[in-house]
């Protein structure tokens, strides 16, 4: 979105400055300015050539970046504040978390396949790949439940230290995002089967896909910053 807007804006700005600098007025309509869908379904045309939903989803994800940015900053500030010696060194099980990260990444791959099947109109594969994406996501959540349980048994509760509060908050937020994504995936499979998606199938799948990829990317950042880089 941004590139075209910026270039569009800058170009216009230059024009305007040029035009108005010597008070010249140009009353001609630039041919390209008038979209040919004039008169049809007012408001449904798109100035950027990008669908409204997609644009909105990108904006939403941009906003989400700041949300996770805030949570990650909080974690980074507090990651060493575990006076009672219950910190990453004692707790992390890197092989396991690597495995679950890998599973989540695989689900991104299946999501890509689902989107591409949906674009081709291949409903059967779309549903299969959406289902497997949801299952892999479910495994990831299972891994997170497992991980949280072991940490808790090892002595790290939500309120134990600043480190634990910020760790559970950050990964918990991410887990909730994954879970919401899974629910969307499963519901989408159901809706596709019953032909109940309001709007374009392919675009709806793509929207859920965008969200899913975003959640995966956030996990990669979390995995790197929280688990891999030593405190």
């Amino acid at each position, binding site marked *: *979105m941004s590139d075209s*807007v910026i270039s*569009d*804006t800058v170009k*216009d*700005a230059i*024009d*305007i*400055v040029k035009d*108005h600098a*010597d*008070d*010249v*007025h140009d*009353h*001609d*309509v*630039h041919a390209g*300015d*008038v*979209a040919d869908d*004039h*008169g*049809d379904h*007012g*408001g*449904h045309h*798109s*100035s*950027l050539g*990008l669908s*409204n939903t997609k*644009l*909105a989803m990108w*904006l*939403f994800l*941009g*906003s*989400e*970046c*700041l*949300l996770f*940015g*805030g*949570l990650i900053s*909080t974690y980074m500030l*507090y990651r060493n*504040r575990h*006076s009672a010696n219950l910190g990453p060194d004692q707790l992390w099980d890197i092989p396991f978390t690597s495995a679950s990260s890998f599973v989540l990444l695989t689900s991104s791959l299946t999501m890509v396949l689902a989107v591409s099947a949906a674009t081709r109109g291949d409903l059967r594969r779309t549903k299969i790949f959406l289902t497997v994406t949801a299952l892999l996501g479910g495994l990831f959540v299972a891994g997170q439940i497992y991980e949280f349980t072991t940490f808790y048994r090892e002595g790290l509760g*939500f*309120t134990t*230290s*600043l480190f634990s*509060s*910020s760790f559970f*908050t950050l990964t918990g937020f991410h887990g909730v995002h994954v879970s919401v994504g899974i629910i969307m995936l499963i*519901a989408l499979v159901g*809706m596709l089967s019953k032909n*109940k998606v*309001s709007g374009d199938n392919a675009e709806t799948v793509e929207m859920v896909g965008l969200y899913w990829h975003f959640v995966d990317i956030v996990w990669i950042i979390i995995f790197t910053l929280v688990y891999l880089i030593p405190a």
Partner: protein
Amino acid sequence: MAIIERPADVPAVVVPTPTASTNFGYFRRPVETTGWKSWAFTVDHKKIGIMYGVAAMFFFLVGGLEAGLIRWQLAQADGTILSADKYNQMFTMHATTMVFLFVMPMAAAFANYFIPLQVGARDVAFPRLNALSLWVFIFGGVFLNTSWFLGGAADGGWFMYAPNSSGIFSPSNGVDFWALGLQITGIASLVGAINLIVTVLNMRAPGMSMMRMPIFTWMAFVVQMLLLFAIPVITVALFLLMFQRSYGATFFSVEAGADPLLWQHLFWIFGHPEVYILVLPSFGIISEVLPVFSRKPLFGYPFVVFSGAAIGFVGWGVWAHHMFASGLGPVSVAVFSVATMAIAVPTGVKIINWTLTVWGGKLWFTTAMLFAIGLIVQFTIGGLSGVTHAVAPSDTQQTDTYYIVAHFHYVIFGGAVLGLFAGFYYWWPKVFGKLLSETLGKWNFWLMIIGMNLTFGPMHILGLQGQPRRMYIWTDYRAGEGFFNLGFWNLIASLGTIVLGVGIFMFLVNVWVTHRPGSTTLAAPEDPWDARSLEWMSTSPPKPHNYDRTPIVHDLDEFFHRKYEDVGEGDDHDYVLRASGAEVIAEEERNADAHIHLPAPSYWPIVLAAALPIMAYGVIYNTLLIVAGAAVAVMAMFGWALEPADAEPSDFDPPPPEPATGTELANV
């Protein structure tokens, strides 16, 4: 539904088609065009804008009442009107209400109403999301204010510095209400921001390039961008606070090693852009008003646009100037001090451009124009006092004193509120089809200006003489001697509040006089101000579908160029009236589009919005309520996702004459 036995002699064919049932109850979509349902479930951006405005106005009066009590308490030394506890709640809620429940939603009201009109769209990009924003804001605001009756409102100041906001130091539920209420209104702002950004980027009429957009739309657009990125930051802070208070987390517990400055950083990273979120819409409004009443285009439109955008960017890099006394270390303070001075430049550009817009014009001093000029003057004072505490060492003497209170009231009341009032008077005929009384309007203006200067002017002196903020009492011992001591100025400030209150009351009187049943005020002409921008090219009030013909835009100030023709030769421009505004509009009506398609109303936005306070009460009182609220929310979301944009024929009662796919308004 009791089953009613049908009389045996009535043949079955009496009911022609089974699908035309009349008994859908909940299952029918609300398609009413009159009555309360046409408002509660509407997705029309204009109705939503009006409801935003009414709700915000209500909260303005609530916040004003709180301010009045504060000043009454401080009128004399050792005031006894409010207890310390109530006073603390009062100033916390005054700020919270004014910022989150008045200025922001009132700006949203203008943005909602005018952005689609100004870019030549039929509605916003996501009409149902728009309804959601409105109801979430209203329910959030009501939720926030129910705390008054449930053990006391928040008492930590609107900045809610940790650790004073944690359960130990603020044990009532007030801060919980505050944190959750702001989460809820934050959702409203975020959803609204996404919606309006998409509208601006994607719904522009043919020919409406970004640099032909009316300036209000531009400023509102910058504001929505700021909201998009500022809201998640405060959301994080509020979540941390909520986990701290409700679930025992230790984010702000110093005993556990927490750093209280974390809250300050998160809060001000949101809080400083928030300042621009408050004032930029008003800058946009007066940038519309000044050219119209000067009969001249806005001077340096691209400069105003880019300075607005620059404020939007630089606004992210100055948050720590709220923390010069917090102990950041001299290097950070120096950096933020200089960045803060830098942001004065684009702000100055705006003031210069407004002055030059007026310069050489043909000035028509309507009430709207007076408010716009009032904004320039009062905001300039606020801006200049702002420069004095961009100087960080000097700020350590001024911060948290009344000098700062004076400064930001000149900026926010003088900047944001006066601009909103300019907007009321300017666009009232557009929205309601009637002109507000100019005589009452001028009373309104002068009383507000005198009132605000009497109220906030003396606060400069109070602050420089060392009176800190947020004190429920002040004492004679530290008020100095002589007649013009701090007591005198405190009293003047309190008396000023009365003048200010009467001024604002004049506005309500004006609205009443104009619209009361049996009012003699006539309908306004279609183009009462000889306006310039696109929104005036629709009827007043606009039709549900805004424009009969999707406008094709050729110019900045499109409407002006449709009315006036350039008869000059070469560089010599000479404009003569070619057609009156009413004629231009009539021309559009004659060439109306054949098929205009509007989305149908929906129950789900208001249902989803209602679920949020239920969950919030659940966080405070009972987890079961969270579950119940979440169930309603999930149901509403999926109901929404499953619902087609258009109503089905069976939703209409009686069904529409033809099996149409939506509301077909042919040749309206």
